[in-house]
């Protein structure tokens, strides 16, 4: 077992970090957070610089981690324009891949993935949006909530109900591609988020939206399975967001200790401060190992849902913990610096793509299943 990345990936990381430090400036981070605006220019530059390269999954993971370490809002915004593409990659037709994926991967198009509805997010099988077959079309009606890129996406992969549950709630669900310019599609930007305010979040309303049947992704009725498969991939990337944020908070704690110690403030480097630093460092390191372990399984095409959920849950918790401890250590210095943004941003990780509670349920249920207890 070798814990070092090959030289080539170490170079990739260096390049990403240099890009991040150059482009994700403190001024821009502050501005996009304040204005709740999506930083499309930064996204485009990241593509141009080859930072977002889906053919290099480890590089992609590192891009998420390193950019979030510099600023979570900008880092996530710059790397999230392909959110949901694995559904098409794994279950879509060649035509769909050509038409959508090529252009998403080149940075030309932005996409989103819509599962959550006003009535619920954790309970995926409980969604109410319907797609009714009418000749060679589906007619979609319903609403989706909290959709990342909702207002800026060119198209969205959406989970819809195509037939009644017939006793099994997760049956009768399908994934479809919805063009955001379609008649009857409305996206209302959600404003006033606690954090990750540079990301675009919207509520989608679908009023008799027509899509061709060719937009069905994978077999009809298999949507629940598609989304669960997708989450087993995307949660690894969310773990990388957590790792980046946690490391970013740790970086700032270290900077504070150094600066305050240089000013002769002994308490900044007291034993109790050192203990807090060590506790955060340990959590960050554990998040790193778990994230890379989950990624390693995934990138070898043998994802392990237990490790993935453990990694996502732990890295999210590490990010929140690190941001909290960094705020506590730095007092008024922290509250008047970008650490306060880390504190606000980190909390989303315990909510999106499976809340921490949902991750724990998955971990426990899979463990007991494996054990034969269930």
């Amino acid at each position, binding site marked *: 077992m070798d814990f070092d990345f090959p030289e080539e990936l170490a170079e990739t990381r260096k390049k990403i970090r240099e890009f991040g430090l150059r482009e994700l400036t403190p001024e821009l981070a502050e501005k996009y957070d304040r204005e709740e605006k999506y930083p499309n220019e930064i996204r485009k530059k990241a593509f141009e610089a080859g930072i977002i390269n889906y053919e290099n999954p480890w590089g992609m993971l590192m891009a998420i981690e390193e950019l979030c370490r510099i600023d979570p809002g900008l880092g996530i915004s710059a790397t999230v324009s392909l959110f949901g593409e694995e559904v098409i990659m794994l279950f879509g037709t060649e035509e769909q891949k050509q038409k959508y994926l090529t252009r998403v991967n080149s940075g030309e198009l932005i996409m989103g993935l819509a599962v959550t509805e006003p009535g619920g997010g954790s*309970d995926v099988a409980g969604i109410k949006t319907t797609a009714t077959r009418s000749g060679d079309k589906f007619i979609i009606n319903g609403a989706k909530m909290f959709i990342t890129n909702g207002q800026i996406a060119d198209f969205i992969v959406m989970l819809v109900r195509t037939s009644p549950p017939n006793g099994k709630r997760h049956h009768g669900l399908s994934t479809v591609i919805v063009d955001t310019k379609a008649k009857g599609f409305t996206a209302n930007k959600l404003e006033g988020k606690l954090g990750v305010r540079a990301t675009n979040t919207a509520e989608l309303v679908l009023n008799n939206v027509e899509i061709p049947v060719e937009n069905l992704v994978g077999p009809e009725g298999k949507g629940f399975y598609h989304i669960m498969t997708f989450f087993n991939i995307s949660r690894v990337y969310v773990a990388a967001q957590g790792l980046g944020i946690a490391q970013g908070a740790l970086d700032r704690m270290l900077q504070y200790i150094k600066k305050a110690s240089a000013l002769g403030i002994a308490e900044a480097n007291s034993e109790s401060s050192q203990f807090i630093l060590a506790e955060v460092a340990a959590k960050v390191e554990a998040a790193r190992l778990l994230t890379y372990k989950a990624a390693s399984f995934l990138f070898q095409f043998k994802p392990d849902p237990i490790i993935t959920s453990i990694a996502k849950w732990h890295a999210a918790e590490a990010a929140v913990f690190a941001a909290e401890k960094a705020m506590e250590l730095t007092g008024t*210095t922290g509250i008047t610096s970008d650490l306060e943004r880390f504190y606000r941003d980190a909390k989303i990780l315990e909510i999106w793509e499976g*809340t921490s*509670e949902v991750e724990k349920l998955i971990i426990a249920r899979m463990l007991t299943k494996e054990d034969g207890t269930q």
Partner: protein
Amino acid sequence: MINEEYRILGDTVKEFSEKNLEGSSLKIERGGLGDDIITKMAAQGFLGAKIPADLGGSGIDEKGYLIILENLARVSPSAALKVLINNSLFYPLVSESGDTGTIEGVAGGKVNATVAMEEVQEGYLESGKLSVSGGRLTGTKIGVINSDATVVVALGGESGKELFLIKNGISKGRSNPSLGFRGLTLSQLVVDSDDYISLGSEGLDRMTKVMDSLDLEISAIAIGISEGSLNKAIEYTKVRSTFEHLLKDYEPVAFSLAHLNSEIEGLRSFLFDRDDLNAKERLELKFLSVDLAKRCTKQALQSHGGYGYLQDFGVEKFYRDAMALSSLFFRRERDNRRLAEEVFQGKAGFI
């Protein structure tokens, strides 16, 4: 006051908060407390709650004052902090200034005052000194809460330890992204004043003492924040369903909210049922309450799922305010040392 009067006071403040603050909650977070609310708070006597009646205040006792802070914080921690700034920071520092006009103005809501506390919050004198030259006091203070104020108490002078009451020439400098208490502004404060009074050279000590004496006030606000956020979570989980069950029916949801509720009740009774809390107990309350506020607000936000992350549901503000309260008023090293010294009856915890 007797118990019945405290109960009536609590109900009155609760009613005031629900009527005047709950509905304006988003407006307060986005645009500040505003003149209208300040006028209403002044009319209730909250702004000068602890200031003596002959100086325009309400002259209320400590317990009554804590009841006001707690019940304002349940709905708007910013409103509670505004009351605390007037009564527990500004007034104690200027009470002997002889400037009764300013004190009356502050108590009556006509004068907006604040205290720049960076030195005592940080525990060191570094930047932002105010210096006197040619009859003018000039300089910058950082991280000042309620920086829209027109009257400020701040440290400065040659030693950096002299206390000043500054009455003109104050403007807001670079504003800070405000984590919490968005009803009040947080920013740098630029001073270029020719109307100021020196309140003595022992300013740093006095300010430190004032800060050290806030344990119960901070506890009351922290408990209010805990209650406000937890009540929202309890109500939400009674009506939101996932997997065809109400959230409140899930063990982890119900158990965690119930445990937090017991902690709140324990601390409320610690704070309100005794009239003879000693220094150690006061400090213990602050430790426990600030910690609880952080945990309660986090769980309350979490129980709301995605909605918790949006301003509209009024729960994320508590999450921000709990941490802001800790950042501004909980001095990790100093308060820990104070507590250790109380427990060990002497010097402890300094290596």
